[in-house]
């Protein structure tokens, strides 16, 4: 990795330059919140955004996607092309970049998902530093730092950006589209000051020491029933989660019943039918067991396989849950024996 500095006022040059080669997706305002959407004008980009309604995963794993078309009569696939245009995701925070790395473990290792892979390969990532909000707890999982998984990462130093260049491609596009200069010792000192300020800004310092032990010890705790009673089983948490990757695949026929579509949609372990199988058996019939397994999967199951927890502390679930259930509250409830 090496580093360059760009003046803040020159940043639109980079966005405009990228737009000439790629579809640029960045944070834009929507009804007082923010979404990642295609940019037509650099002025739309809101780099002061706190978080977005949906995480960037939608650009790799869309909420609903036709993965192939087939002909019913001869049972032939007629179209399974992957739509993966050259794209730049601009302004991702460290949590969201870390989340994509966790998704990669699932979609690029072992069984490779061609749809996810094609989009991942055709997408450049430009990261952006941030400041903690009320609901952020990336500090808890050390996902407040990101060292790979991006092409360029911009740290806001007030009047300039400290640009970390992780890939050759990132270095090339920066150089091509925006005036930049070498990093001075003072720039690096300021970079560290900014990062320290960032790290001191977190409210949530939940103790995750030996979390797998806590989870196993509390497997039969009535806490889960209490949380289950509060849960709406609406799946909002899974939808807004940058690391929830479960999907459902179903076939349907076109109105003429001659051509079929195979459609993949986001699914949620909080849905009642998620763990239902043939003969009417349902492994997660009640809400409490569904909430519990969401946490067991994220904080223990995935950890045992990939040595990381499947959470980056972005806080989207805490904001989206109508019942106010959040990882921080759940972990604290397990520790104290009381749901706050």
């Amino acid at each position, binding site marked *: 990795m090496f580093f360059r500095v760009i003046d803040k006022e020159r940043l639109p040059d980079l966005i405009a330059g990228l737009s000439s080669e790629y579809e640029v997706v960045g944070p834009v305002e929507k009804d007082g919140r923010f*979404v990642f959407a295609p940019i037509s004008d650099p002025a739309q980009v809101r780099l002061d955004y706190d978080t977005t309604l949906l995480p960037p995963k939608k650009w790799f794993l869309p909420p609903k996607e036709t993965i192939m078309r087939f002909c019913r009569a001869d049972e032939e696939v007629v179209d399974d092309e992957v739509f993966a245009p050259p794209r730049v995701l601009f302004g991702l925070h460290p949590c969201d970049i870390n989340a994509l790395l966790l998704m990669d473990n699932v979609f690029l290792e072992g069984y490779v998902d061609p749809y996810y892979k094609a989009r991942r390969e055709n997408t450049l990532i430009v990261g952006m530093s941030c400041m903690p909000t009320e609901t952020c707890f990336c500090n808890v999982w050390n996902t407040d730092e990101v060292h790979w998984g991006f092409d360029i990462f911009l740290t806001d130093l007030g009047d300039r950006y400290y640009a970390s260049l992780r890939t050759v491609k990132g270095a090339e596009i920066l150089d091509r589209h925006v005036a930049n200069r070498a990093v001075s010792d003072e720039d690096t000192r300021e970079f560290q000051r900014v990062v320290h300020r960032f790290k001191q800004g977190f409210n949530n310092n939940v103790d995750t020491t030996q979390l797998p032990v806590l989870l196993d010890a509390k497997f039969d705790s009535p806490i889960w029933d209490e949380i289950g009673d509060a849960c*709406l089983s609406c*799946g909002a948490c899974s939808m807004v989660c940058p690391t929830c990757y479960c999907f459902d695949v179903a076939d349907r026929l076109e*109105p003429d*019943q001659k051509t079929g579509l195979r459609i993949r949609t986001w699914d949620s372990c909080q849905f009642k*039918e998620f763990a239902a199988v043939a003969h009417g058996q349902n492994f997660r019939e009640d809400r409490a067991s569904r909430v519990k397994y969401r946490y067991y999967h994220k904080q223990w199951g995935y950890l045992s396989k990939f040595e990381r927890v499947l959470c980056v502390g972005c806080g989207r679930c805490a904001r989206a849950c109508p019942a*106010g259930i959040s990882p921080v509250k759940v972990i604290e409830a397990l520790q104290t024996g009381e749901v706050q």
Partner: protein
Amino acid sequence: MAPRVVIVGLASDFGCQVQMTNIEDDLLDVLGLIDLQYWQLASSGHMPEEYDIAIVEGAVTTQEHVELLKRLRKTAAVVMTIGSCADTGGILALANCVDPDVAYAAVYGKGPEVARGRRAPGPVDAVIHVDYRVPGCPIDTDEFINVLSRALQGLADRTPVDPLCAICKTKENVCFLDRGEVCLGLVTRTGCGAKCPTLNRPCTGCRGLAPDANLEAARAAFVSKGLDPTELERRFDLYNAAREVTR
């Protein structure tokens, strides 16, 4: 041989039958799949004696409707309901919230005399078993085609059982509850694609109570958002006042 279909309306504004004509581009394809023997909206003739699929719109509000439904069930191999009225009793079931004599007197003057055989408005499945359902006010044409297709293939009914919030999140709508507005999506059956919230209108519950809804938790959520929890059920009555009838 294409299955013989009858489309029958009980008490409703025929909106869902009209909505079927809005299939437009695909209407001819859909009609090509079936042998449409009777369509109440479009026919002045009589219903045939034999048919395979009965599509029913409207709420059950009279004894006559009950007899008709029993006949349909006896004759048809498949009964499919379309629209809120047939699915939950719909708006008509609001009549259950007032004294029927007073209501009839207000509307018809003479009351009981014109209301022979009247019945507390309710859904079709309060009278007969329903195989497939397309909820909503009005129905979504795409869902209708899909459910009809499943019925024609003999596939199981897959009416969703979960609330609406998940799909609403995928549309990146800012939550109405967070804006201090009553929205019924957190207990309403999904499957509509969250059309209303996406058009900036809160969910009114037209698709009925999601079988897996957690009403108690929804009331608590209303309280935590500073909303009156009694509003949840009061507003939900708009399309679901007959819910005790089915339960």
